[in-house]
């Protein structure tokens, strides 16, 4: 159920304040140490951020998609590494259970995920299965009352901290493509699972991704998400579709921050005897940034509201992810340009954002995958 406006405003202003007072001052440190401090993670738990998307009956806030996007506009105004701390519990790690989990799976996991006591991670991508996720090779073979898992998952966000994985594995090796894939709620602390070293990345230091290797890892059959095999790929696609709006909102949040930084800098930085903000060519960059940010924000809210109203927004979610992630890339590029030399040196943090936002065009469906989805859906719509 949607919040009344007063409560919603209070929620958002609390998050904005938390971001300004607690997170923004730590951006450089988090990047330098490649670690979000434990006390900040604890404060995020106490604030209730891990549970924003989890239904109220399981101890979460049960926010609507629109409300979740508004929260992410705020949380996006700082290093995306902070968002990543809660990202998988709010989004791809937990939503498989919320959408398709059995009652006992919801009862077991959702309360712990809502408080942040447990961390959920989403394990779909493999060395040979990225954009072509349906070709995944990890297997889960039924053996009596268990499944035995073998295979390697790659670039798994929060794997090093995970309590459980929403794992996609092939239960039917004879059926190629998505139909042979099932989803599992796989505990992380069982024999046969090895978590790789965190990868060195271009940006978002403080957020970690690593390989997850399964070698004859044995899990009870009850770990199958839902009741029947072969539905895992559909679950993964539903989770990712919702995640697209989540990521789009983060992109809009980061763009908002970069716009503010750039606007302030343009008003202060003097060249030719006046603030560079007086120069029309600088204004032109700011105008493009503002316009594109505004467009992305409107798209995200429109798609989120429609989703809340029960509409199918598969195409719109892809439009949002495609536009918002490309938009924030352009905005970050212009921010560096407006800051000039200062934008290129690390002290101002602008080059850090420039690196941080690059991944948005890649993960949870590349821009090209989004184009394919949008294009295919448009053709389908008008062919009917």
């Amino acid at each position, binding site marked *: 159920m949607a*919040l*009344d406006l*007063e*409560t919603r*405003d*209070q*929620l958002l*202003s*609390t*998050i904005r*304040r*938390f971001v*300004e007072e607690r997170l923004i001052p730590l951006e450089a440190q988090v990047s330098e140490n490649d670690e979000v401090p434990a006390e900040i993670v604890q*404060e995020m738990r*106490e*604030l*209730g*951020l891990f*549970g*924003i998307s989890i239904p109220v009956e399981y101890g979460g*806030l049960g926010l609507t998609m629109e409300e979740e996007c508004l929260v992410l506009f705020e949380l996006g105004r700082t290093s995306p590494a902070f968002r990543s701390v809660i990202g998988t519990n709010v989004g791809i790690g937990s939503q498989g259970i919320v959408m398709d989990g059995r009652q006992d799976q919801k009862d077991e996991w959702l309360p712990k995920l809502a408080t942040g006591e447990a961390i959920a991670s989403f394990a779909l991508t493999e060395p040979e299965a990225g954009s072509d996720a349906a070709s995944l090779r990890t297997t889960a073979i039924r053996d009596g009352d268990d499944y035995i898992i073998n295979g390697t998952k790659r670039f798994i966000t929060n794997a090093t901290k995970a309590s459980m994985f929403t794992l996609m594995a092939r239960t039917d090796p004879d059926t190629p493509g998505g139909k042979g894939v099932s989803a599992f709620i796989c505990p992380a602390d069982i024999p046969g699972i090895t978590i790789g070293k965190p990868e060195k990345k271009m940006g978002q230091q403080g957020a970690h991704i690593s390989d997850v290797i399964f070698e004859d890892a044995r899990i009870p059959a009850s770990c199958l998400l839902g009741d029947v095999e072969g539905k895992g790929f559909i679950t993964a696609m539903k989770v990712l579709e919702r995640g697209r709006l989540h990521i789009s909102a983060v992109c809009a949040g980061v763009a908002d921050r970069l716009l503010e930084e750039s606007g302030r800098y343009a008003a202060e930085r003097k060249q030719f005897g006046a603030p560079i903000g007086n120069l029309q060519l600088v204004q032109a960059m700011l105008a493009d940034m503002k316009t594109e940010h505004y467009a992305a924000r409107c798209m995200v809210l429109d798609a989120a509201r429609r989703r809340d109203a029960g509409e199918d927004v598969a195409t719109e979610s892809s439009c949002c992810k495609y536009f918002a992630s490309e938009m924030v890339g352009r905005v970050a590029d212009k921010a560096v340009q407006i800051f000039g030399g200062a934008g290129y040196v690390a002290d101002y943090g602008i080059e850090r954002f420039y690196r941080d936002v690059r991944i948005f065009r890649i993960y949870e469906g590349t821009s090209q995958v989004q184009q394919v989805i949008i294009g295919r859906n448009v053709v389908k719509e008008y062919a009917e």
Partner: protein
Amino acid sequence: MKVLVPVKRVIDYNVKVRVKADQSGVELANVKMSMNPFDEISVEEAIRLKEAGTATEIVVVTVGPQQAQETLRTALAMGADRGIHVKTDAEVEPLAVAKILKAVAGEESPELIIVGKQAIDDDSNQTGQMLSALLGWPQGTFASKVEKDGDKLNVTREIDGGLQTIKLNLPAVVTSDLRLNEPRYASLPNIMKAKKKPIDAKTPEDYSVDLTPRLQVQKVTEPAERQAGIKVETAAELVAKLKEAGVIG
């Protein structure tokens, strides 16, 4: 022990305040408002007393327009138990607020009232002291530490040049200073639950308090803009310049 905490809705401390063109006050239209930071400290202190088992109930009270209810909700989200909203659109001065608070204290019989030492809008720093006088209760102003000691209260006060610790009989009025504590963020679940906590709607008439202003604002102006300084090469030049400016003889 029941604790009463008055809270005031003021311009948010991050807002750059602008003076109205006619110099009658400051611009309030479309300006972000929030709880007076010193009141936030008071609420936090009350919650800590409750968490420590010293306080049993926290009642928050505000005097102000309809929107002041948001300030009460913030306090309730932080952890206060219930609110009292004394609704008025009139400009209220410290004495009128103190009189209303005295009447509220009469109805609620708190053992402790924690008031912010001042509100950051008018910086009056009067309400707590006036309230203490009207009630005839002891006061511990500018508190940086508050501790229950049997049936008394030890209050450490920030005074010029150091700290002073005094022992107060209860009931008492304490005004909170900046270093008393660091207020918490209301958690998101508690913000949602705060909606269900009760707020009593009252008016100044309910307490028979006359709000007629006793003060008149002559004009409000911005502080004079700081002039750019100059750099001097030597100490002698500095002394000469200071003499020139009439700062030293």
